[in-house]
């Protein structure tokens, strides 16, 4: 009982840690978007097209070597963009598809994926790793890993604001782009508000709270945050109105498509098409 109480009482601290972690998250800091690498120098619209094509190729591939090739291509892009490879590989494989790893393990065995036995771990009850099981797990891991790599690479090399605005190349309406930009901006403010709420509580609390109390407190801070969000949305609306907003979203960008953008888009498209053809 005491043990579980401790676990419960940790919820606030864990939330605090996560909230802080996300504030300090290195993607938020956009360190790598300012390096003079290849992808950093491209028009974000070109990058969106490139990465969509590559993601599609990864998604469509029915061949493991092709998937591996696409993954290696992502490493090449990372290298050209001065993203430290160690960091990149670690970030993708150590953390992102961690969950996928757990999911892939049962697929190795005959009770999920029947096939030729490769390795008999246990005979009674029968626990056998099959060839097709290995293939299945490899498909899942490689596909998830390659997809996540591409996604991370796009985000690592593109400032957030540019990425959101570049969505217009996919015909995303301006009103959504305006809303997205505003969401992104206020997430940070609300995270800080939440962080302050947790810190204020932490500084006051001496003993540990019971589960119900803690739950009520979490709910109260959610409710408090909701109220704050509402008030903010009202004030922000006034601030927009004051500067001439008349209900029509206008978003401007200063992107310019250059030959280099065309070239790299063409390269990525070519890689994707070849991969789709080879991996069909």
């Amino acid at each position, binding site marked *: 009982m005491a043990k579980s109480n401790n676990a419960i009482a940790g919820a606030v601290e864990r939330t605090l840690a996560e909230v802080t972690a996300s504030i300090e998250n290195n993607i938020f800091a956009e360190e790598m978007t300012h390096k003079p690498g290849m992808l950093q120098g491209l028009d974000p619209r070109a990058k969106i097209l490139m990465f969509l094509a590559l993601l599609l190729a990864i998604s469509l591939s029915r061949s493991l070597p092709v998937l591996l090739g696409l993954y290696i291509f992502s490493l090449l892009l990372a290298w050209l963009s001065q993203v430290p490879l160690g960091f990149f590989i670690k970030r993708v494989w150590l953390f992102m598809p961690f969950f996928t790893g757990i999911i892939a393990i049962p697929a190795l065995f005959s009770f999920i994926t029947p096939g030729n036995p490769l390795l008999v771990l246990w005979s009674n009850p029968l626990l056998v790793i099959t060839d097709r099981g290995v293939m299945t797990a490899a498909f899942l891991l490689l596909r998830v890993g390659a997809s996540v790599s591409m996604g991370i690479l796009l985000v690592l090399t593109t400032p*957030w604001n540019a990425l959101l605005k570049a969505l217009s190349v996919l015909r995303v309406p301006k009103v959504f782009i305006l809303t997205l930009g505003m969401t992104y*901006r206020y997430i*940070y*403010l609300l995270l800080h508000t939440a962080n302050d709420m947790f810190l204020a509580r932490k500084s006051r609390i001496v003993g540990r709270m019971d589960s119900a109390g803690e739950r009520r407190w979490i709910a109260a801070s959610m409710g408090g945050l909701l109220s704050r969000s509402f008030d903010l949305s009202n004030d922000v609306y*006034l601030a927009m109105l*004051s*500067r001439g907003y008349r209900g029509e979203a206008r978003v401007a960008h200063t992107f310019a498509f250059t030959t280099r953008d065309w070239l790299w888009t063409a390269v990525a498209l070519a890689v994707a098409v070849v991969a789709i053809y080879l991996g069909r």
Partner: protein
Amino acid sequence: MTGMQRETLFEIEQVVFSYDQKNLALNGVSLEIFAGERLAILGSNGSGKSTLLKLMDGLYFAQQGEIRYRGTRLTSELLNQENFAFGFRRAVSLVFQDSDVQLFSPSVWDEVAFAPLQLDLAPAEVEARVAEALGGLNITTLRDRAPHRLSGGEKKKVAIASVLSLRPEIWLLDEPTAGLDPRSQSWLIDFIQERWRQGNTIVTATHDLDVLDDIADRVIVFNEMHRVEAMGTVAEILSDEELLVRCNLAHRHRHYHFDDVVHEHHHLHQGEHQHTHLE
């Protein structure tokens, strides 16, 4: 100043406003604002000065009484008219007290470009205006930064730049010096004086007696009943201690010094305190 009658920009007559029907924010407020003047609206927190600025900016509307802008009564219908709103929003601008409210865009550039974009200016003109506003405030280096990563002083500068790109004639500033470090404060005062010299009208809501002399010629004092208590020059208002204490703008407190002499002084936040010996 030239002897000519100055144009009256705002005529505020017996304005009543409340946010929730129960608590009044403005309780029959009347005043006039003239072109090219520097006016401070002095009042304690919650006295209604912030609300008055929002009414003058056409964000809220008087529930009783009226506000006339250059002779035209401000109403919600009028502000919904495209051509009136266009001219009004361009001329009158409000710098909010909380920069986090005013800075709602994902980057500084977008923030400063927001207002020119609403004017349907050509992309090149928008770019030029943003560059002019950022350059004018010496914050060109902040161009691509995210507003939430800026310091308080930088935020205030960006908030001002976001309005400056409209090239407004009338500035409504809500507690502009609140929460700023001394360097940012003195920058802000210089900026206000510069705008005024350029012929802009400056209306500042504040409870900061320290800066009054630098930003205003005329002062209107709100009391805690949400009404105008007094009007006058800066010198007149600052010398009326009773008024300031009555309106919760200065306080009187007693000091028990080591020598057992009790001092009472009014905090006017002006550096020098007037000490009164109480025997």
